[in-house]
């Protein structure tokens, strides 16, 4: 004699089977298939928005830079700061800006960790046409290649346009 109805047992077994298969798949399948790194630009209070829109030539300006390491391993990153007058010198996803770096910061990040760094950068243009000039402040994210010991551009960068005015003291 069995008090459990055959159909009820079949349904319950089916539920257990499905749950078991899903749990197994969850364990066996890789949890994260897309690894990436990210860089973000925040204002001097480390918040989004309210970015300064003008600065005197030669003054310093403070930003917060956010770096996120979602690779499958720890990595040493480098932030390179550049200033560009021209659009053609902006970095793309494949090529960094050809301009020389005006500042460099390194940070070693564990996998899955992020950091926000408050960076003070000089805004210094060689010459200003008229009373002011539009310039892009560029922050590129580079990564140290452990095999070659050289820096590799990650394809990630941020830039912000700012009006650089002739300093009244000059």
């Amino acid at each position: 004699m069995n008090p459990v109805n055959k159909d009820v047992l079949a349904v319950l077994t089916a539920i257990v089977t499905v749950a078991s298969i899903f749990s197994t798949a969850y364990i066996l399948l890789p949890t994260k298939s897309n690894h990436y790194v990210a860089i973000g630009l925040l204002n001097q209070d480390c918040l989004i928005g309210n970015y300064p829109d003008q600065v005197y030539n030669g003054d310093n300006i403070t930003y917060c830079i956010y770096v996120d390491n979602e690779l499958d391993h720890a990595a040493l990153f480098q932030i390179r700061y550049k200033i560009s007058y021209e659009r053609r010198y902006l970095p793309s996803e494949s090529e960094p800006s050809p301009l020389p770096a005006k500042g460099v910061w390194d940070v070693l990040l564990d996998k899955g960790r992020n950091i926000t760094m408050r960076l003070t950068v000089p805004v210094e243009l060689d010459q200003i046409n008229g009373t002011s000039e539009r310039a892009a402040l560029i922050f590129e994210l580079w990564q140290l290649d452990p095999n070659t010991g050289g820096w590799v551009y990650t394809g990630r960068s941020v830039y912000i346009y700012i009006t650089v005015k002739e300093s009244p003291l000059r």
Partner: protein
Amino acid sequence: MRYLASVAAILALSVAAIGLISIASPPEGIEGQSVWDKWLYAYRLVIELSRSGINVSEHLELLNQSLHYIEIGDYDKASRILDQVIPELENDYIALGSYAFQENVRKYSIVAALLSLPPLFYYLFPRAYLEVWYRLKRNWIVVSRDEPGQ
């Protein structure tokens, strides 16, 4: 605003937790280059360990410190830290094989247990249910309706 404030708080905590280094490029000079090579070796080990799922946060902290000393040109201190951290990393790297084996055993044991659940359920559940059913009704008395006097 509240969201922005919480983002700012999280970001500030991240800064406090990790710290910031400012270094330009690999150091110059024979001593500097030798320490940098040593640092790179430790970096490679850390990456391998990190990729294999080993917790390397303490090692990263030491590597951060040594990087800071390299940046300020204090190669002795940088080298001393690296001499401390590299043997630990090497030991962990050697143990990586057995760690991977243990991890695989653990993982596939769980998988085997999970996959054996449906047949076990099918076999054991009716029996367990029956056992409980019997226990709940063991005080019942079977009485024939036809028995005289009932």
